[in-house]
C-alpha cells in the first residue's frame, strides 16, 4: 500500500443487518482475517434473542496496531446490510467516517427508509451494489455479505490472501464450489472497493513489525474458557443450556470426549452443580457453566461445597437480570449472588477476568485453587466478555499444574483419618473414595474434624473455612489485582472488575493525556478481596470512581463495606458495554477539570 506511513492503525468497522443477512458471518471473516494479518483485534456481536424473524444483528470489529482494551463508542465505518436496522446506528459513526450501504435506487423504497437520507453532513456515503455484484459473479445474491467484506477490504487495501484462507476455512465443511463462489464474490467487490476514492484519515497501516512472533489466536471469552479447561485437564463437565454460557458446554461436548473425558447434559442446573460437586468429591476436575437464573438455582449446593469442602468450578456468564431479564444483553449484576449467595457463611473464591486472555488464565487457575483450597471457585464473566473476540497469544507451554490436592499421610496403626483436620494453614489432607483405609463421611451438617455431625464445633470450623482462604490473594502466577497508570499519589483512582475494565483503562489513558493524575485498578479476585493492594491505592487517591454495569453498585458496596471508604459510583444498565466517554466525564469531574455532561449525578439512569 503506497500511502502507508509509519503510523499506527486504529479503525473500527460496524456491520449491521437482520438475522439471515450473514452479518455475524461477515464480521467473523473480517476479524479472523485481520488477526491473521497481525493486527490486534477486538470484536463483539449483538444479536436478537429470537432465532427466526428479522431481528437486528450488529458485528463490531476494532482493528489496531497497538493493544486496545475495548470497543470505541464511534465506528469509522458502518456497513448496512439492512437499512431499517442500520439507520439508528448512523449516529455511531465518527465525523468523516464512512457509511457503506446497498445502492438501492431511492425511488424504490418508502420515504425515510433509505439510509442515505439519514447520514449526517460529516459522513461519507458509499452506495455499493452488493446484491448485483454477488449476482453477477455467483448468479445468486447469497454472497452479498461476503461482497460487502470484499468491498471494505478493497477500500482499505487489506491483504487479500488472508481473506482467502479465512473464507476457505469458514466453508471447509461445505462443498468446495461454495468456497470458490464466495472468493469470487469477495474478489469482484474487492476490485470495486480498491478503485474507489479513499479517505486519507483512518486508513490501514501495516501491522507493527515488532509484533511478537508467538501464535495469535482469534478467540472469544467463552472459547478461552474452554481452552483453559482443556489445558487444566478438566475431567467432567455438567451443564444445562442457557445464554450466554451455552457455547462453553457445546464446545466441551465435542472436545472432552476426544480426550476420553465427559460432558453430560443434566436435567437442570441443580443437577449440574450437584453432579459437579459429586465428581469433585470423587477426586476429578469438574466444572459447570451457567448464567444468572441457573446460578440462582445452584446457590444451595454452593453452600454444601463450602461446608463439605469439595472442589468445584462454576463459570457464570452474566446477562441482564433479575429473572429472565435480558437474555441477550450484557450486565454485571450477579456479583452479590456470586460472593454471598447461599445459606449461612458460605465461604468461596470468586474470580472475574477482565479480558479474553484473562478468561483462559482464570479458567485454568480456578481448577488449581478449587483443588488446593477444597472449595467451590466461581469464575464470573458476562455476555460482553463471553462473546467478544480478541486476538490473544496463549503461552506455548501449558501453564497449569496437575494435582494441587493436599495429600494424606500414612496412617499409624489404630489411627483414624480426620477428613477435616485443622492444620496450620487450615487446609486438611484430603482422601477420596477408593483410597484404602481412609473411609469417612462428609456432610452438609456442621461437623467435627472427623466429619461427624456436631453443632458445638461451629465456631471453630467456621474459622477454619474462613481462614484457609485468606492466602488466596497471595497466590503466585496470577494477577489477583493490578494497578495501571500513575504511580504514587493520584487525584482519581478508578477501580473496576470484569469486562468493564477495558473501558476503564481506555478512559484512564485518555484522562492522563489530559494531564489528570489518575490510576486504574482491576480487581480479579472478588472473594476474598485482595485488600492490601486495594487499600494501598485508596490511600494514594483523593477520589475513587467505581464504574460497573449494575444499578445497585454491587462492587462499590463491597468495597465500601470492606474498606470503610466511600466511593463515587457510576452505574449503568443499558444492556451494552459502558461508554468510555461516560467514565472519562466522571474522571474529569472528580479531578476538578471542566465537568462533563454527567454533572454531579451520582447514579446515571439507564438509557
Amino acid at each position: 500500500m503506497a500511502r502507508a506511513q509509519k503510523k499506527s492503525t486504529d479503525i473500527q468497522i460496524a456491520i449491521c443487518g437482520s438475522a439471515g443477512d450473514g452479518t455475524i458471518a461477515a464480521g467473523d471473516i473480517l476479524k479472523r482475517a485481520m488477526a491473521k494479518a497481525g493486527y490486534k483485534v477486538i470484536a463483539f456481536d449483538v444479536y436478537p434473542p429470537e432465532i427466526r424473524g428479522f431481528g437486528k444483528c450488529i458485528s463490531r470489529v476494532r482493528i489496531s496496531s497497538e493493544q486496545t482494551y475495548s470497543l470505541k463508542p464511534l465506528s469509522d465505518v458502518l456497513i448496512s446490510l439492512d437499512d431499517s436496522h442500520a439507520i439508528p446506528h448512523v449516529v455511531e459513526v465518527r465525523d468523516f467516517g464512512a457509511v457503506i450501504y446497498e445502492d438501492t435506487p431511492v425511488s424504490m423504497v418508502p420515504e425515510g427508509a433509505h439510509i442515505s437520507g439519514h447520514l449526517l453532513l460529516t459522513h461519507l456515503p458509499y452506495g455499493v451494489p452488493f446484491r448485483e455484484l454477488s449476482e453477477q459473479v455467483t448468479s445468486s445474491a447469497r454472497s452479498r455479505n461476503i461482497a460487502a467484506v470484499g468491498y471494505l477490504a478493497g477500500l482499505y487495501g487489506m491483504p487479500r490472501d488472508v481473506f482467502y484462507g479465512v473464507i476457505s476455512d469458514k466453508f471447509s465443511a461445505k462443498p468446495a464450489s461454495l468456497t470458490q463462489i464466495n472468493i469470487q464474490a469477495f474478489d469482484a467487490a474487492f476490485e470495486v472497493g480498491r478503485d474507489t476514492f479513499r479517505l486519507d484519515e483512518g486508513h490501514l497501516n501495516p501491522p507493527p513489525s515488532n509484533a511478537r512472533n508467538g501464535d495469535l489466536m482469534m478467540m472469544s471469552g467463552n472459547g478461552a474458557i474452554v481452552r483453559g479447561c482443556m489445558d487444566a485437564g478438566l475431567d467432567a463437565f455438567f451443564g444445562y443450556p442457557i445464554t450466554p454460557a451455552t457455547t462453553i458446554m457445546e464446545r466441551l461436548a465435542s472436545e472432552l470426549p476426544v480426550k476420553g473425558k465427559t460432558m453430560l447434559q443434566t436435567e437442570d442446573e441443580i443437577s449440574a452443580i450437584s453432579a459437579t460437586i459429586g465428581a469433585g468429591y470423587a477426586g476429578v476436575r469438574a466444572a459447570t457453566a451457567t448464567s444468572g437464573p441457573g446460578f440462582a438455582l445452584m446457590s444451595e449446593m454452593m453452600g454444601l461445597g463450602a461446608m463439605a469442602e469439595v472442589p468445584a468450578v462454576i463459570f457464570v456468564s452474566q446477562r441482564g437480570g433479575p429473572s429472565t431479564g435480558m437474555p441477550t444483553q450484557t450486565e454485571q449484576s450477579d456479583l452479590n449472588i456470586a460472593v454471598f449467595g447461599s445459606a449461612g457463611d458460605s465461604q468461596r473464591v470468586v474470580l472475574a477476568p477482565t479480558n479474553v486472555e484473562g478468561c483462559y488464565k482464570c479458567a485454568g487457575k480456578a481448577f488449581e485453587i478449587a483443588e488446593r483450597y477444597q472449595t467451590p471457585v466461581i469464575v464470573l464473566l458476562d455476555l460482553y466478555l463471553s462473546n467478544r473476540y480478541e486476538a490473544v497469544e496463549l503461552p506455548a507451554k501449558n501453564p497449569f499444574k496437575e494435582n494441587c490436592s493436599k495429600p494424606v499421610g500414612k496412617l499409624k496403626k489404630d489411627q483414624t483419618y480426620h477428613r477435616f483436620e485443622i492444620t496450620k494453614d487450615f487446609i486438611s489432607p484430603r482422601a477420596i473414595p477408593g483410597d484404602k483405609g481412609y473411609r469417612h463421611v462428609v456432610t452438609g451438617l456442621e461437623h467435627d474434624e472427623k466429619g461427624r455431625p456436631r453443632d458445638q464445633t461451629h465456631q471453630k470450623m467456621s474459622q477454619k473455612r474462613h481462614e484457609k482462604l485468606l492466602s488466596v490473594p497471595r497466590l503466585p502466577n496470577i494477577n489477583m489485582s493490578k494497578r495501571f497508570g500513575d504511580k504514587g499519589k493520584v487525584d482519581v483512582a478508578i477501580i473496576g472488575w470484569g469486562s468493564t475494565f477495558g473501558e476503564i483503562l481506555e478512559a484512564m489513558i485518555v484522562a492522563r493525556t489530559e494531564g489528570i493524575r489518575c490510576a486504574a485498578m482491576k480487581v480479579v479476585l472478588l472473594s476474598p478481596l485482595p485488600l492490601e493492594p486495594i487499600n494501598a491505592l485508596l490511600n494514594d487517591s483523593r477520589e475513587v470512581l467505581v464504574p460497573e454495569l449494575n444499578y445497585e453498585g454491587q462492587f462499590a458496596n463491597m468495597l465500601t463495606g470492606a474498606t470503610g471508604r466511600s466511593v463515587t459510583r457510576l452505574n449503568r444498565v443499558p444492556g451494552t458495554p459502558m461508554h468510555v466517554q461516560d467514565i472519562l466525564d466522571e474522571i474529569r469531574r472528580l479531578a476538578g477539570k471542566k465537568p462533563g455532561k454527567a454533572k454531579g449525578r451520582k447514579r446515571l439512569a439507564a438509557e
Partner: protein
Amino acid sequence: MSNIEQPVYLEEKLEEIYDSGRLDYRSKSFPTWCPGCGYFSIVEGMTTAMNNLSIDPDETVVVSGIGCASRFPFFVNTYGFHTLHGRALPVATGIKVANEKLTVIAVGGDGDAFAIGGAHIPHAARRNVDMTYILFDNGIYGLTKGQTSPTSVLGFKTSTSPFENHDAPLNPLMMLLSYGAAWVGQAYAGHPHHLAKMIEQALAHRGFSYLHVLSPCVTFDKTTKTYKNLGMSVRELPEGHDTGDIMAAMAQARITDTLALGCYFKELRPTLGDGLSDITRRAQGKEKDNLRKHDKPKKSRTNSATKVPRRRAAV
C-alpha cells in the same frame, strides 16, 4: 420367599451377626433413629448384602439427601456423602461419572425423593446410571417431625394436614417402571431377611436399580403405615411373575390395597458408563477422520476456531 413369615429372635440374630463378619460394614456411629424405626432393618439388610457380595467398602460410596433416612451413610462403614435435601441422585451420578469403578448407592426418604428431588429420578433412571437407589418410604416427613409427604395416604392427619390429607399419594413403583428403571423391586422393613436379599439383588444388578422399602415411622405415624397395617397388606408377587414383562410389573404396581414384595422388573441395557465410552470412541474415531481430511489439503489449518499462525501482512 418363605422367610417373610419367619420370626426373628434376638439371640439368634446376635450370633448370626458376629459370625457373619458383616459388622465390618457397620460404622462405629450409633444410629440416631427412634427405637423401633423401620430404618434399622435397612442398615442390617445393607450390611448383610454387602458382606454377602464381598463389596470392597473402600470402593463404595453411599450418598444421601436430607431426612431421617438420609442419616444412613453415617451408620455404614464405607465412604459417604450426606448431601442436600433431594440431591442424592445427581451427586451420585457425578461420583459415578468421575469414577466408574466405585459401587455407588443412593439412599433417601419419600419426601427427599418424590417431593423436592422428584425432577432427578426420571433422569437417573433413563440414563441407567449403574447404581442402586434405596428409597425408605414411611409416607411422612420424619426428620421435620411429622408432616404430610407425597406418599402419605388419603385421609392421613398430620401437623400440616390437620383436616386430613386430600392429595392423592404417588405410586413410586409405577413411576420408576415408566421412567425406565432397569431393576425395580419392593421390600418391607418388617421382613428383614427378604429385605436383605432384595438389597443384595439390587446391588448385584448392572444398571440403575430401584428398591422401594416400606418402613414405618413409629413416632409420627400411629395410624396409617404402621407395622400392623403394613404387615397385613404386604404379600408376595404372584407365582411365576415374569420379571422381564413390564406390563405384568405395572399390573402388580397398580394394585395398592395390598403391596407385593419382590423384584417386579429387571432388564439389562447399556448403562451411562457404556454410553460415555461409546461417545469417547466415536469422538476419537471422528477426530482421526478430521485430521486425515485436514492433513492433505491446501495451506489452511485445521480447526478454524483456534490457531492463527501470525504472518506478515502482504501490503
